């Protein structure tokens, strides 16, 4: 959750509850399952790691007086995360949040991110397909590879849907 939180902070400094709102909204229905304290715990860790700075704002009557802001190291970490294509370490949820954070903060073109990720998945699929083709057709080992190929194929289809949607949104 550290990287998505950092990326969602890239647009502007925010209160913890605002960040949590952004995250819940970006996740859609799965966001409702989010543990409320988790965002604060993560923010605390990010402050400790020097990726986020925290400022107390006194004059507000709101109980949440802390405003969080990315540090220079935090910005570097966000850029690294956006460029990381190592699927499935980068999960679909990560990737989805990456697109939203990148678009909101103007950090990168979502369609370009999708394209780069799609190429990486095609490369992985090519690797799996190449391995399948040198196996005898009915080998048991081939069955494991077949599963990997089908998952990558499904992921690539999802990226194609993402690309279409983000293109539509960018035109509007």
């Amino acid at each position, binding site marked *: 959750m550290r990287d998505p939180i950092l990326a969602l902070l890239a647009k502007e400094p925010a209160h913890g509850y605002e960040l949590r709102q952004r995250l819940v909204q970006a996740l859609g229905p799965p966001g409702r399952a989010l543990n409320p304290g988790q965002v604060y715990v993560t923010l605390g860790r990010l402050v400790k790691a020097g990726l986020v700075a925290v400022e107390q704002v006194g004059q507000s009557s709101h109980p949440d007086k802390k405003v969080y802001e990315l540090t220079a190291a935090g910005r570097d970490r966000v850029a690294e995360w956006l460029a990381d294509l*190592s699927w*499935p370490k980068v999960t679909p949820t990560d990737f989805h949040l990456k697109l939203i954070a990148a678009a909101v903060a103007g950090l990168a073109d979502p369609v370009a991110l999708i*394209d780069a990720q799609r*190429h990486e*998945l*095609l*490369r*992985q*699929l*090519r*690797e*799996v*397909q*190449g*391995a*399948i*083709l040198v196996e005898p*057709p009915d080998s048991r080992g081939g069955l*494991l*590879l*077949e599963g*990997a*190929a*089908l998952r*990558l*194929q499904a992921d*690539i*289809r999802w990226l*194609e849907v993402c690309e*279409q949607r983000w293109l539509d949104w960018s035109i509007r």
Partner: protein
Amino acid sequence: MSAPGGRPVVEATGLTRIYAADGVAVRAVDGVDLAVEAGETVSVMGPSGCGKSSLLHLLGGLDRADAGEIVLDGRRVEGLSETSWAVLRRRTIGFVFQSFNLVDELTAVENVELPALLVGASARRARHRAVELLERLGVADRRDHMPDRLSGGESQRVAVARALINDPLLILADEPTGNLDSRATGEILRLFADLRASGQSLLVVTHDARVASTADRLLTMRDGAVIGHTHLGGVAPVGSVLAGLADFGDAGGAR
């Protein structure tokens, strides 16, 4: 895999096809440049309606372009009469379709030999070659079956045999695995890999990433235009994915 200095088997420049749909001109294919070198496999991907099938139909002469040029085996197609184009096409291009397009009234072997008979091969020679191909593609035992007695995978193998019968320079395949299950898709991919190893040039239009990923090059189309061009490279390297499948997550040692 193309011979150095070898000319492309097919080359298209500025290829354009405009359809009128409800009084609106739709540029189904919009200024596409494309070349397939000898021995090369090129895949074309893109969302449905992006013009990838239309492009294939233009290259194969199933439809005529409104603008642009096609050079097939070093010959400009535009200047040819309908008849000469048909002859050139039958001798140089083999088609594979999503729905197999086998003739229902003919047996498997009769379907395969048909294009050879159409270019004037003797019945004896055509039959000999058709049986040879059915054997090579592993469906020799289905030679006398009617198409409705064949599985999807078998039908597509017969269709590939038919596409190969006139030793085409280029195979054009339109969603060849679109109607196949995972196992039959695997068989067709294996078949295409064998064809490539024998030096066959292929242009494959597909929305199946498994098929596209095995090509030498990948073109991505949107709204009639080619918007991306990727060299997928030679033999796929063994790397992260296979290693990941053997990662048990307890590499830290005995627990």
